């Protein structure tokens, strides 16, 4: 789901950028492969999923971060708010790496590995998704700040997910029996965050409608309005976080 969100988002943004650099196709290809890998793995859970597409997603994401940082710093103004708002976004390639990492983690879990990155599985996956949620929330904060928080609902994705992330990180640090209340609370917050991703799409659709010409001018406004594919990454991460809490 995160890969799908990255795929459509980078497709839109790089389309807007006119695919000026051939490298701009890489995240598309990589996110598509990761998506295919994930789809295959979920159709045939018995067979081990290939690691390659997920590993590639991690690498392409890391390279993308490098490119985007370079692109940002060489613009006049350097590391300025204007460039953070409008230059190639730093958060997007990180999301691709995150999708790759989650894919790899799922693969390991599928193979029945007892630990991930030498941490207990529950804690590792919990921390990874918590970090992802916090990071995505940071990205939403930057972009909603750019939009001057003109709608009070724009505060939700910068307040709820960080709480969910903190609770998740806390709950995943203990075995489920040790902190049942914390786990329940974390789960509730994660569920709300998952729904936030859905509501976000509706709100972003309304944002597109508020552009000049509204949905009648969809071909332009889908590009210039708030991105429709962005909010579901909250749902994706919240679901992954929920899955982490299912682990013993």
């Amino acid at each position: 789901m995160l890969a799908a969100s990255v795929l459509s988002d980078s497709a839109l943004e790089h389309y807007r950028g006119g695919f000026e650099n051939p490298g701009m196709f890489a995240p598309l290809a990589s996110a598509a492969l990761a998506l295919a890998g994930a789809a295959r793995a979920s159709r045939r859970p018995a067979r081990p999923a290939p690691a390659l597409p997920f590993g590639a997603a991690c690498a392409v994401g890391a390279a993308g971060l490098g490119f985007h940082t370079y692109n940002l710093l060489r613009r006049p103004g350097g590391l300025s708010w204007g460039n953070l708002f409008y230059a190639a976004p730093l958060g997007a390639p990180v999301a691709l790496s995150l999708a790759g990492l989650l894919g790899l983690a799922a693969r390991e879990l599928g193979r029945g590995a007892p630990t991930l990155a030498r941490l207990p599985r529950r804690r590792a996956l919990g921390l990874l998704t918590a970090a992802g949620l916090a990071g995505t929330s940071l990205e939403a904060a930057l972009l909603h700040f750019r939009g001057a928080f003109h709608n009070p609902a724009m505060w939700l994705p910068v307040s709820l997910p960080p709480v969910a992330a903190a609770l998740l990180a806390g709950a995943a640090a203990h075995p489920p029996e040790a902190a049942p209340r914390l786990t329940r609370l974390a789960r509730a917050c994660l569920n709300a965050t998952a729904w936030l991703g859905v509501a976000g799409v509706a709100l972003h659709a309304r944002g597109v409608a508020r552009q000049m010409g509204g949905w009648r001018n969809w071909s332009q406004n889908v590009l210039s309005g708030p991105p429709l594919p962005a909010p579901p990454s909250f749902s994706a991460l919240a679901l992954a976080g929920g899955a982490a809490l299912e682990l013993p």
Partner: protein
Amino acid sequence: MARRPRTGGGRAPDVFARGGWVPMREYPDSDEVDFAIVGAGAGGATLACKLAEAGFSVVVLEAGPFWRPLEDFASDEEAQQELYWLEERLTGGLDPIALGGNNSGWGVGGSTVHFSMISLRFRPEWFRARSLLGYGVDWPIGYDELAPYYEEAERALAISGPLRYPWGPPHRRYPYREHEMNAAGLVLARGAERMGVAWSPVPLATVSAPRGKSPPCVYRGFCNFGCSTNAKQSALVVWIPRALRAGAEVRDLAMAGRIELDAAGLASGVHYRRDEEWRFQRARNVVVAGYAIETPRLLLNSACARFPQGLANSSGLVGTHLTTHAGPGVWARFDEEIRWNKGPPNMAVCEHWNYADEGKDFDGGYAFMSQGPLPRAWAQLVATSQNLWGMALREAMLDYNHMSGLVAVAETEPRIQNRVTLAAKRDRHGLPVARVDFAYSDNDRRMQEHARRFMGRMLEAAGGRDLWSSEDTSHILGTCRMGASPDSSVVDADGRSWDVRNLWICDGSLFPTCGGVNPSLTIQALACRIGERIRRLSARGEL
């Protein structure tokens, strides 16, 4: 083109809907309203809103039409020429100012309907230019007094600006974030960084995110005409709807011709022409807000037995000390495509010489901005500055997408001989037309030369080639200046005439000096302050 008034019958056009209407309160001419305001531009519309919201009865008389942006404004340079004040005026002096498109608006919203939305504050020292900087005259109010009203105007207009503006005292963050910089702005930015001077995105009165019924800017670049998107926060879409909601009446196509005085020497109302008919609106107070040419013209046209040389003119200063912003420009060709028509015309600014006082061979200051003229305006500039015509002009126009340039907003000195007077010629209403005489001082010329040199170096630093320069003027200010005493000014710090205490002025003609930035934010801040002052004076029974 024959136009019919749109307001009346209890309603006014809805600026946010094609063919839409909003309810409007109306007053009969015979009602003595608290305030009759002449002109619905930056000064008049803002004051109308403030006064109506303070509970006064207000009638606004506006010579031009009440536009509906969504249906009246077109993305067509030619069709949009009707937004300017194109009634006849005479112009003279050694450096006659071209009047019309580049300085005067016509219609509800005034010149803000087609302004470039640059919204900058004055440098604090300019309010005491004579005492602190040694030139011009001091204003009767200081920056600190105006600062809260600057802020009020910035909030009302939802200015989209940078998080930190590099010049001037720190102030609260602009309500909306800066817009994405266009390539023409990046040229200025690159040049400034290579020369080691600061630059900034321009704080603009067009929204970068939705606001109420305004959608965000679509960067189509038709800002020097009516913004048909309604992203531009003009007086027409910001102050007028608020004024109407608070009970003000706006009469469009109502040309004020004369202010009447009663036996006691107080203003008793305004003679105005609407629908081919002369009418008289009675009022307890009259406010003139017709901008720096029409305001003195109306006062001079209202001469009467008690004030034979014009209303509020016992000092003899009405019409004098006209200032304009000189607009020297430098243009260069770039190898890469710039496409400078994308986005608002002025997106990056350098105010270095407004704040640095060393290294100047002139008094005063100037700012300069990146440019984005549309093809027709560009062709006109190339033709008149380069004397190109025919095939040569066509070839020059092929470079349109590769051009970039910088134009200054350069302060000129207030001088008594630069002035508005009445000509013998009469307009279609039978009123004497204005004659505007203007000449630059030596200081004004030195400043322009300095600006041309500095901007040229910046364009070269940014990679521009084949530089050439142009001349222009923009905003017109002064002519009814505010001041501390009746013999050196026309009105006091509240915009209140020294001679006729229920006659007020609230527009660009108040400026004693013009500073090196675009004036509309200061005009609106002054209007907010005057509105607040009137409310307080009234509460104290001193109106």
